[in-house]
């Protein structure tokens, strides 16, 4: 049997990856997502370092979602060592985390994904034709930048998170300076969400079988939690590694994951949306319903719907934080390091981010394990690509390779892969 292959670099995603199409005699047989980016071995680098250094080292894993890494690491040690985080400091930290979600969603929706929705090859093209949209994108982008800067010190690798809380509560007047533009940001978020909801009409609508995994929180739309929700069950984060199975394939520098029973699962906005829709604000739910969206979303192309809804939700939540902000004096923190095993998990913009650390008698990290969301989605990217091709009737041979590759890239972009994270 003649087998041919075709490789193309993934564009408009974070990091270096390739799509490889494998053709049989007549039809495409398989899609492979090649993760070629070189690893940095961050888990190895952490060995011998003190827990207090870990949030800042972990943050360098990803320039888009560094706060997620800081919070996951800090909460792992805080919970395991019974370190209390004052309420005000925790609220500030959550606000920084929410700002990161906003930033990541803006980057993804406006700069990486919009071209797919509108059928062009880059956001620069979109903006040229639609200056209003460009202005809105830029304003929103700048607002998220400013929020991160005031609350965290800068746009990424922020300097204001440590085990036990934060270093400083910013002045109330500085935080209030975000308030004026917050109204506009909420309007922008709503408009953008509506724009997405409307245009997604054009995207494929077939129903997919999809197993979703997400953190759950009884009150809020989830960002930090001890509980993971899967298949109608809940389990504690310390049991996560028992629920999943790791695999390594020759073409990926990222490890890949299925459930222990060998099921393919999905993490990310589409999973959060489906499990926590009722924790979204009334206002956001109403907007979604008016466009006919309700949980569960059962097509990966609706990820962008979930992302736009989150952008709206998180803008509201950040505005709330700003309006009710009351700084308190931050007390000095003495962290008593105890040996043990520590688990932490957060909902990073792309889904569940899991950390485990073993701290030894010398008070330094002996072993670290970090499982980013993109690594967990890799198998689904391949599987859903084949499902998509089959639903479009695009299972043809090599002569259709360009069209096939384009469609596969669109599916992969719906996961918003962060390849640097996946290899870390």
């Amino acid at each position, binding site marked *: 049997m003649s087998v041919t292959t075709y490789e193309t*670099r993934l564009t408009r995603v974070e990091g270096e990856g390739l799509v490889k199409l494998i053709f049989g005699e007549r039809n495409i047989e398989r899609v492979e997502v090649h993760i070629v980016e*070189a690893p*940095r071995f961050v888990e190895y680098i952490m060995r011998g370092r003190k827990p207090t250094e870990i949030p800042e080292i972990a943050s360098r894993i*990803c*320039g888009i979602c560094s706060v997620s890494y800081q919070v996951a690491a800090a909460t792992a040690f805080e919970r395991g060592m019974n370190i209390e985080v004052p309420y005000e400091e925790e609220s500030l930290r959550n606000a920084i985390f929410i700002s990161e979600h906003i930033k990541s969603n803006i980057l993804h929706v406006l700069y990486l994904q919009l071209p797919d929705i509108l059928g062009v090859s880059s956001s620069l093209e979109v903006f040229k034709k639609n200056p209003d949209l460009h202005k809105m994108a830029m304003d929103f982008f700048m607002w998220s930048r400013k929020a991160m800067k005031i609350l965290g010190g800068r746009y990424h690798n922020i300097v204001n998170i440590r085990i036990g809380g934060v270093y400083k509560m910013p002045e109330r007047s500085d935080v209030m300076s975000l308030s004026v533009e917050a109204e506009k940001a909420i309007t922008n978020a709503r408009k953008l969400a509506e724009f997405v909801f409307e245009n997604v009409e054009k995207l494929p609508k077939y129903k997919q079988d999809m197993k979703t995994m997400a953190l759950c929180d009884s009150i809020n739309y989830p960002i930090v939690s001890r509980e993971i929700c899967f298949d109608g069950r809940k389990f504690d984060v310390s049991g996560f590694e028992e629920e999943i199975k790791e695999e390594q394939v020759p073409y990926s520098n990222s490890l890949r994951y299925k459930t222990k029973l060998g099921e393919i699962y999905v993490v990310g906005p589409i999973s959060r949306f489906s499990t926590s829709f009722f924790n979204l604000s009334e206002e956001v739910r109403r907007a979604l319903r008016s466009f006919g969206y309700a949980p569960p979303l059962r097509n990966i192309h609706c990820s962008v719907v979930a992302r736009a809804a989150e952008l709206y939700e998180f803008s509201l939540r950040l505005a709330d934080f700003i309006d009710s902000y009351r700084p308190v004096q931050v007390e000095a923190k003495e962290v008593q390091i105890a040996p043990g095993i520590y688990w932490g998990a957060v909902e990073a913009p792309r889904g569940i981010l899991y950390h485990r650390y073993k701290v030894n008698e010398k008070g330094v990290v002996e072993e670290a394990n970090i499982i980013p969301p993109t690594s967990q989605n890799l198998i689904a990217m391949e599987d859903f690509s084949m499902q998509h091709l089959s639903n479009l009737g695009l299972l043809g041979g090599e002569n259709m390779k360009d069209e096939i590759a384009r469609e596969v890239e669109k599916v992969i972009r719906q996961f918003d892969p962060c390849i*640097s994270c996946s290899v870390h």
Partner: protein
Amino acid sequence: MNKLRIGVEKLTSCSGCINEIIYALLADPKLTESLEIAYFPELLDKKSLEGQFDIFFVEGSIVNKDQIETVEDIRERSRLVIAVGTCSTYGGIQSLRDKKGVEEVKKHVYPKPELIDVEGDVYSLQEVIKTDLAIPGCPVDGNLLLRVLRKIAIGSKDISITESLCAECKRKGLECVLVKKKIPCLGPITAAGCGAICPSFGRGCIGCFGLRKDISSKEIENFANRLEEAGIMKKSDVLSFVMRFSYAKEKGYFEKIVEERGR
């Protein structure tokens, strides 16, 4: 006027600096007008390197032959090559695995280490090709990048950054956390550029903008000794902090330190 043809490539890194590059390229519409963004896989669908470039920004460090070939190709095609961020300038945090034996390192992370194409130690861009400018920062400061771009756009050649963080910190009138609170701060040996963010949050600098260009290993050692004598931080801890971001700046020295510590 001809537009400046721009390329951007990411190597082994986190994309934090890529975001700042996006900001610098797009924040000022007038400047954006004068640029042709010709290669930037994270932003455009264009897949391969073609033609000559006026400015090429490179993020990240170098860990295998493919990357060496890529940056050599970039060098040949570009008038100016700019190393962006601490990874590209000094290797970044990933350099902490240097001299540990890469095969050994792989075993700690992968069940099948033989499948991973990483060949040796971590190199900064400056160690592999000649760069015209290196702008450190983890991440680099987007506004600084914007200023550099503007200068190049008007044809200026004089773009240098040599100052310590303390100078910036003092200009801002911040309280010195090192002197007043005995909090370890790497400001005196760290390159300026961030605007003294950490001291403004009441904490010490951890050196993410990398060591000052003009600093020698002797001065690093003196600084560490001084902190130890003042009872602020153990010398070995100071050095362990410094090498987190600036390993490739003083490789020989840090290798020796790590060996002595036997970790």
